[in-house]
């Protein structure tokens, strides 16, 4: 109950920032919120289903690239048209990649998702028609104005949180947690676990696509590095930092990482070493992340 009130207060405070009109904070928090959509949706796979996917950045990038293509080539800008198209495209790609990757299990799954991510990275990076290594500008943005984009991103975060927490409380979410605990046992209980995992993969991919769409809308720009494996690694780091297996943890992790990135860049040129040290320390000493500090006793 207390957690719910805290989350409600945090959501209201984040929403309130829209009225401040402060350029820096609007941009900074919008970026952090996009990161939290990515982290929460990846946590559906990593924390709740036990699937370590490195393909998350791919779906983010695919939706962003599709938005650039739609606006630049076909003059389709209106979010009522482009948003469903981009999210559906990410979901369709997740269906194909997920179907192939889920044939493999455990560590093979990690490697295969990694390989698909890099395949897409090179596809965009090496072909001039798709912008090459420079990426593409989104010539007309679906949502004009900083404050309007901020409000849209805020609404998306709230909706994604509500959707995922509802999903995880539903019988479907319980089955996913069962799969994380013991895939074989769930199968012997009669659950077609691969299909359950595929649905989770597609939902997570679609939400990553939503994040990519919002990112391209906010910055008006997309490049292949956003789709590469390092980006996927960074989303995994966000999930871990916040605490896998909770929804608010990864959202918090995204905010923290945004702060580190912003202020780390000012302090030292080698702020990536800072992130590296943080990651290593968290893996070794705080495996349940920030949420582990908050929660105390381990969660079953």
């Amino acid at each position: 109950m207390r957690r719910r009130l805290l989350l409600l207060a945090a959501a209201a405070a984040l929403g309130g920032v829209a009225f401040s009109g402060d350029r820096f904070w609007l941009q900074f928090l919008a970026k952090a919120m996009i990161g939290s959509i990515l982290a929460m949706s990846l946590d559906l796979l990593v924390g709740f289903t036990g699937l370590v996917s490195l393909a998350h950045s791919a779906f983010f990038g695919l939706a962003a690239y599709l938005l650039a293509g739609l606006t630049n080539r076909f003059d389709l800008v209106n979010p009522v048209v482009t948003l469903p198209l981009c999210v559906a495209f990410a979901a369709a790609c997740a269906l194909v990649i997920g179907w192939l990757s889920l044939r493999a299990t455990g560590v093979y799954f990690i490697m295969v998702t990694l390989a698909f991510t890099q395949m897409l990275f090179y596809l965009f990076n090496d072909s001039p028609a798709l912008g090459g290594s420079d990426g593409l500008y989104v010539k007309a943005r679906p949502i004009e104005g900083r404050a309007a984009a901020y409000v849209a991103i805020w609404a998306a975060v709230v909706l994604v949180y509500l959707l995922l927490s509802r999903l995880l409380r539903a019988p479907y979410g319980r089955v996913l947690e069962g799969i994380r605990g013991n895939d074989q046992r769930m199968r012997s209980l009669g659950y077609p676990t691969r299909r359950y995992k595929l649905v989770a993969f597609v939902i997570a991919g679609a939400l990553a696509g939503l994040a990519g769409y919002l990112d391209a809308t906010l910055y008006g720009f997309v490049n292949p590095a956003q789709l590469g494996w390092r980006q996927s690694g960074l989303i995994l780091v966000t999930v871990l930092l916040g605490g896998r297996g909770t929804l608010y943890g990864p959202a918090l992790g995204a905010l923290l990482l945004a702060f580190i990135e912003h202020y780390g860049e000012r302090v030292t040129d080698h702020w990536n070493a800072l992130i590296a040290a943080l990651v290593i320390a968290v893996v070794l000493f705080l495996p349940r992340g920030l949420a582990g500090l908050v929660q105390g006793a381990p969660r079953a």
Partner: protein
Amino acid sequence: MSLSLFVLQVVNGVEYGLLLFLVASGLTLVFGVLGVLNFAHGSFYMLGAYLAWWLSERTGSLLLAILVAIPAMVLIGLAVERLAIARLYARDHLSQVLLTYGLVLLFNELQRALWGNDVHGVSTPRALAWTMPLGETQTWPAWRAFTALACVGIGVAMRQIVLKTRFGMRVRAGASNAEMVEALGIDVRRLFAILFSAGTALAGLAGMLAAPLTTVYPGMGESVLILSFVVVVIGGIGSIKGAFFGALLVGLADTFGKVLLPGFASAIVYAVMAAVLLWRPRGLLGPAFEGR
């Protein structure tokens, strides 16, 4: 495609495949025996290449640089195993991915801090700076032939060690059941440390051999890391023989892809991998049962 061009692509593909084999064999052994998925393996390749460049600038000889750099790589491997990897043996894949991802970031920053962002060329030793004719129109650099021969030699030596020595027997036993090996009173910690540093040195050596061919640049380890993953997935995790065939397949697919379908070359390798996975989800020579 003329015959001599075809032959050139074949020898280039085989040579590239052999180089990948050096990297992938360490990756597959470390996973098969230690049970650790090591993303920092590509960083060792990069470190090897940078050491080769830096030392050959100092000493004036690439071969001398390689002789000095290999023990250095072994020491780096021992340090990384003791300080980081040894803490991961009992942990899940996610922790392994994340910690070794942290190591990748760390090594990248180290490289940036020590050697900067510039691209560096490495000159081949004068004794090997000639080319051999290949048919009427093509030539093949002697350094590539040397690289291929060195890789074959190391591959054969590895096979002998793994199949014929007591140490190799323990490695094979460790790959099939590390707990049982420990229960039989063998010092698994030592075995793991030796194996990990050997893998590190192999990846580093691959980087040193590749340095004159590819130049030395930031991020060079990452493309090799991902290709090695593809090799290991195709060959089957833990199988050296699988890594060998997988590496040749990937080397040839990549080389021919660059000639026949420029722009999609990088994607072809992954298409091959997807095809193999559809056919055999555990790789060509992977374990048939649900292993690690």
